[in-house]
Each structure stands twice: as structure tokens, then as C-alpha cells.
């Protein structure tokens, strides 16, 4: 019955895209940047510079020969004044290279367009660009682009859904840098031997859709997929189904169903690296929320302390009580603002006390709202009950490990159960501690 439905389930959340159409302004150069050595999934980088070294913009300052790793580059020119342990935006203590800026922003000598003529050189260039999944996961892109079964992969899906409320930087980049994104898609398709490229965009961004439709004329291999306005269209499994009709079952990689999925800003950054040789040294960020004076879109060097970004936006308005890195559905609330911009930072949302209020949980009333919301077709209420009873068998029966922590169930639950946190995080920890799926 449900296997023939045309769309996956989801929820309607207020878009709150207050900064839509807002140009991305580079912020005032910070005095110091703090660049962590682990901004991706995989082996952390080792510093390749020492205290006292002079570095230039785009110079590699951290790398690791391990297979799953992406290099990290200096985002400002200046002097390395410390290499220390510090809490990062990802919520862990990490080795951080502190660079005191000299204000000149000299590009490094290595910043020249790379020579790319084949797949190998392309993948090398992707690695050198420092690209990681900018949608949040942070998986090194050159690994994603190099699946074990290349002959079975034929489609590149570019994620331009931007389904999280508040965030508008991808939208803005799609409108302003559509050409780069298209060229990036064409290059990726060409060098990876794919057959077609699809960019998925939610219909609440008609200007971006129109732009790509126009640009794609004469490129039969490229296609715009208009996505309905529903959260979470940008979740990998949902996007894959909505654009190609293929189901990404939990535990499968996109390559297993013949696709590669990449964020629109990742594709853009790769193309800009191919054109200029400048790697990923800055990030487009939406700064919004009711406790920021001037919500806007900014471009900030990687490693910029949060207070500097917020200071550029007019500072805090009133007393901030919650700061979220990323969108309100899947972003992370941080305990203090003493952290810095990293590759995965797409939004900084600052809210006052009223917004930050956490409502008390009440009893589950079995209303079924979570079931109607879950894009993965799970029964969230039963999973959370099975977890409370520490019932491994029931967790398996209800496919608990398929949860992707999208937050739809928590959003709709009238009893204010933290379903997605329990089902997505606690359950996984519990099942793994019990020796995993039977």
C-alpha cells in the first residue's frame, strides 16, 4: 500500500527564510583564526606547519596520508602563533592551528588552476580542494566520488533542496553562481564517466529553478528536479527517491543504487577550485534568529570565532539563550559561543529565551502523528517504547536502525517526546552496545 506512494512522507515547517535574496557579504577579516584539524569524517589532519611559520591564503596547513581525509588550508595570510587543544564547533576538543592575520590576504604560490585531464587527476584535484560534504555530514568528497563500483554509477544528484528553515545561502549561491554549479556538474559527470546530472531544488526557490532550466538548455544530460516544499527533501535518502525513484535502504551507499549525491555548495567550491586553484578557505553562512541584530548571509574565513561573525551582523540583540549551528531541524545547539566556523557550518542561528524554551514531556497518546510524518515509514512511537523497555527484539521488528534522525517525528509529537533524539541517537548506541542487529 505504502510502497506505491509517489512521495515520501514528511512535514511542513515554517520556512522562516528571512534572509532569502540577501547577498552574501564577506565579513571583516578576523584578527585571528582557529582552524581545527578534524573537519571531516575520517582521519584527522596532522599540522604541516609549525608555530612561527608564515602562511598564505590557500596554503595547506594540515593533511594526513590516510585514505579517508581531506586537507585543511590557511584561510588568512599571517603567522602561526599557536597550535593548541580547543573545543570546536563539532563539540569535541581538537588540535587547532591559530593564525594571526597580517591583513594582506596574500594567496599562496600553490593557488593555480590544476591541470585536470582524466578521472585520476580530477579526484586528486577534488581532494586538493579540501572539499567535504558541506551539507553537514562532512564526508570527504573525493572518496564519495570514487565508489568501489564505478561501472554501476551513472547519475550525479546535486542537493539544492535546502529544506531546513532559515538557511538561504545555498539558494543565494544557486542564483548567483549558477554557471559555476553547472560547470561543476558537467566536469563531474565528464570525469567520473556518468550519464546524467540532476539538481534537486524545492519549489520555494522559483528563481533558482528558472535559472538552471535556462542554463541547462542544450545539455540533455542535465536536469532540474522540482521538489515539493516539504521537509526533509534534502535528506540523502529522500532526495535520492524524489529525484530518481530509487530507494536508498538503510545501510546502502548511494553508489549501490547507481548515484552519487553531493551538496550544491560542494560542487560550486570544486568548480571554483578547478577555475582558480583556491581551495575551500571560507564558508557561506546564514546568520539569523530573533537574537541577532541584523540577520544576513555572510562569507566567513574558516576558523573565524563565532562572536566575530555575529559582531559583523550587528551583535546580539537582547540576551541570547540558544545558538544553533546549522538548521533548526538537525542543527546542533552549542553550550557557549567560544567556537569557530568550520567547513560544515552552514548557519548560525541565535535565539532568545522564549524560543529556547524546552517543553515538558507528557505521556504518548498514540495519536499516530509521528507515523504520518516519518519519511522512512517507521513507527517512531513504538521504537521509543521499545527503547524504554530495552527490548532489542522489538527494536529490530520496528526497523529502529533505519531512523535517520531527521526530526520530523519530534516536530509533530503533541506529547513533546524527543523521539528523533531517542530513535536516532540513543537507540543506535544501545543496539550497537548489544552487538548490533541480530
Amino acid at each position: 500500500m505504502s510502497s506505491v506512494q509517489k512521495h515520501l512522507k514528511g512535514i511542513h515547517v515554517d520556512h522562516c527564510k528571512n534572509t532569502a535574496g540577501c547577498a552574501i557579504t564577506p565579513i571583516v577579516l578576523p584578527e585571528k583564526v582557529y582552524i581545527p584539524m578534524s573537519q571531516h569524517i575520517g582521519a584527522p589532519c596532522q599540522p604541516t606547519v609549525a608555530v612561527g611559520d608564515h602562511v598564505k591564503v590557500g596554503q595547506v596547513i594540515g593533511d594526513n596520508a590516510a585514505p579517508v581525509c581531506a586537507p585543511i588550508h590557511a584561510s588568512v595570510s599571517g603567522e602561526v602563533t599557536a597550535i593548541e587543544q580547543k573545543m570546536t564547533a563539532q563539540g569535541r576538543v581538537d588540535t587547532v592551528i591559530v593564525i594571526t592575520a597580517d591583513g594582506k590576504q596574500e594567496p599562496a604560490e600553490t593557488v593555480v588552476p590544476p591541470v585536470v585531464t582524466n578521472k585520476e587527476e580530477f579526484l586528486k584535484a577534488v581532494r586538493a580542494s579540501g572539499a567535504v560534504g558541506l551539507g553537514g555530514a562532512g564526508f570527504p568528497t573525493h572518496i564519495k566520488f570514487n565508489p568501489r563500483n564505478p561501472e554501476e554509477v551513472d547519475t550525479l544528484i546535486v542537493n539544492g533542496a535546502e529544506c531546513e528553515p532559515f538557511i538561504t545561502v545555498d539558494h543565494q549561491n544557486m542564483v548567483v553562481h549558477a554557471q559555476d554549479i553547472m560547470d561543476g556538474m558537467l566536469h563531474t559527470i565528464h570525469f567520473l564517466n556518468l550519464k546524467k546530472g540532476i539538481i534537486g531544488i524545492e519549489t520555494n526557490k522559483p528563481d533558482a529553478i528558472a535559472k538552471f532550466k535556462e542554463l541547462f538548455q542544450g545539455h540533455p544530460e542535465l536536469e532540474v528536479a522540482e521538489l515539493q516544499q516539504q521537509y526533509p527533501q534534502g535528506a540523502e535518502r529522500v532526495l535520492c527517491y524524489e529525484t530518481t525513484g530509487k530507494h536508498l535502504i538503510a545501510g546502502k551507499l548511494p553508489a549501490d543504487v547507481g548515484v552519487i549525491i553531493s551538496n550544491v555548495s560542494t560542487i560550486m567550491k570544486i568548480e571554483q577550485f578547478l577555475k582558480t586553484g583556491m581551495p575551500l578557505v571560507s564558508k557561506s553562512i546564514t546568520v539569523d534568529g530573533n537574537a541577532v541584530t541584523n540577520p544576513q548571509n555572510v562569507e566567513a574565513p574558516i576558523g573565524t570565532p563565532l562572536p566575530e561573525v555575529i559582531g559583523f551582523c550587528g551583535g546580539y540583540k537582547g540576551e541570547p539563550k540558544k545558538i544553533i549551528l546549522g538548521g533548526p531541524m538537525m542543527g546542533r545547539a552549542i553550550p557557549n559561543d567560544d567556537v569557530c566556523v568550520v567547513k560544515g557550518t552552514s548557519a548560525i542561528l541565535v535565539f532568545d529565551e522564549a524560543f529556547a524554551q524546552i517543553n515538558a514531556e507528557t505521556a504518548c497518546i498514540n495519536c499516530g502523528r509521528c507515523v504520518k510524518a516519518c519519511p522512512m515509514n517507521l513507527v517512531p512511537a513504538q521504537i521509543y517504547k521499545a527503547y524504554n523497555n530495552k527490548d532489542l527484539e522489538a527494536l529490530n521488528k520496528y526497523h529502529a536502525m533505519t531512523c535517520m534522525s531527521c526530526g520530523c517525528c519530534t516536530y509533530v509529537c503533541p506529547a513533546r517526546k524527543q523521539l528523533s533524539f531517542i530513535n536516532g541517537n540513543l537507540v543506535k548506541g544501545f543496539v550497537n552496545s548489544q552487538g548490533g542487529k541480530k
Partner: protein
Amino acid sequence: MNKRNLIVSSAPHVVSPVNTSRIMLDVLIALVPAVAMATYVFGMRALLLTAVCAAACVAFEYAVEKILKRDVTISDLSAAVTGVILSLNLPANLPFWMAIVGAFIAIVLVKQLFGGMGQNFANPAITARVALFVGFATAMTNFPLPVAQQTADAITGATPLGLFAKGMVEELPSNAQMFFGTIGGSMGETSALALLIGGAYLLFKKVIEPTIPACFIGTVAVMAILTGNDPIFHVCAGGVMLGSIFMATDYVTSPITTKGKVIFGIGCGLLTMVIRLFASYPEGVSFAILIMNILTPHIDNLTIPALNGVPKEKKAKKGGDK
């Protein structure tokens, strides 16, 4: 200066404004037409009975939660909803003390002793009605006639279903009377129109889904046609409207998935008609819902949705391989 001591919580950081109290408030609003209609048909005694039931349910909930040292949850309005629905299941002239016994059964025995909100296996109002029906059979079947039809020596009379069961078909009221509710019966079972207005409000507010009422009412109608009876009469008579819209849709005691709701609704309809046509009771809605309530955990168990892209057969085979 850095900001510290921010509030940290797990995502998502936004939630829908609908909470349990809001849902229960909507149900209360949806019950207004039915209570108003009952008051119009049976007089102020009906309104008073509703007030007594609601107050008794809230008071019992408060008292039990205090005694059992649970969080007091009367502000979620669910006890008030149970009270109002219970009253609609009673004849308007039922002695108050019997109504209070009903409230005790609903809240204390069925709801709180099974663990409180969300834990009860059967709908409290239905169970209370069935218990009263068994315990106080005379008072519970002594239905008053509408005020307008009462005469000096006939204050009470048989319900349409009572007449039907006795085979007194020619004395049945017209379908229009049945629809608007100027007939004898328990308070909330007379006016299909008032209940439908409330149901429409609940659908509009997305408090309930049409699945259960549609399957329930549809099955009753189909069964009536198949057995050569008047479908409109059977749908409007007795508790079908009240039961299908307000009691079978009780979240706690009905299945959580759409497929489960279809099975549940059809089951309710079938059992209702089987009891009406073949059992010795004239009315079967309460028993039908009660039985389906008890079956709900099993229905839920059999209707776990398949994962996206994983057909049922494949999953079954995988289970067999293990």
C-alpha cells in the same frame, strides 16, 4: 564578551504548536453541537448531566493522581473529554449518582489503574457505559422521549433501535427525524447532524483522520444493504455516529497506522451490525468498539509498515533465512 550557559538541547529545535491539551480542547469544541442538541431535545437535565460527568471525571483524575503521587494531568483536558463523552452515552434522566459511578469506572478503573494517560487498553467512556448498562440495566435503557414529544403519561419510550429489535417497524421515526435527532435515545446518540458537525470540525483541525469513521459507517451501511435493511436508518440510529466519530477514533485505543485503522473501522462496523441483527441486544456499537479496543495491540502488531523499497515478501524471506 563571550556568551556562556546557553540552553543545549537535542534537535529539532522547533516543534509544531499542537500539544495534547490543544487536541483535547478541539475535541471539547467538537462536542459542543452534540451537547447543545441534547439540551435542546431533552431539556436542561441533559446539560446538567454533562456537567456532572465532566466534573466527576476531572475530580477523580485529580484525586487518583494525588494518591498515586503521579503528575496531575487534569490540565491536558483528557478527563473532561472523557466526562463529556460519557454523558453523551447516558439517558438524559439517569440519576446523578449512577453517572458518578460511571465516571469512577472510566477514570479510576479503566484509565488510572492501568497507568494513566496513554496506557489504558480500552476507551474509558465506552467501558463505563458497558459496565453501567450491565449493572443498571433498567435505568440505562429507560430512555426519555424528546421534551416536545412527552405527554402526561409517556415521558420515556423505546428507542428506534428498540422498536427495530421488537420488529415494530411501522412505528419507526422518519429518516429526517433520525438525522436531526428529535428521537428518543441516550443524550448524544440522537442527532447525527450535530455529531457530523463536530466530526467535520475535528477533520478540519486534523485532530482525527477520516479513516476510522469512514470505514465504520461505510461497513454499517454496506451490511445494512446486504441484509435488506435501510442503510440510512442504521447509520443514524443508536451510537454509530457518536461511536465512530468520537470513541472509535480515541487515539490511545485504536491502531496507529492507516492500515490498522482500516481494519479497526471495518471490524467495528461488522460487529455492530452482527450484534444488532443477530444478538439479543438492540444496540452493538459499544460492544463492538470495546472488542476492537482489545484487539488493537494485535492489529498494530500485524500492520507494522514495510520499509521504503523493501517489499513485504522480501522481508519475510529474509526473516526465514535467519
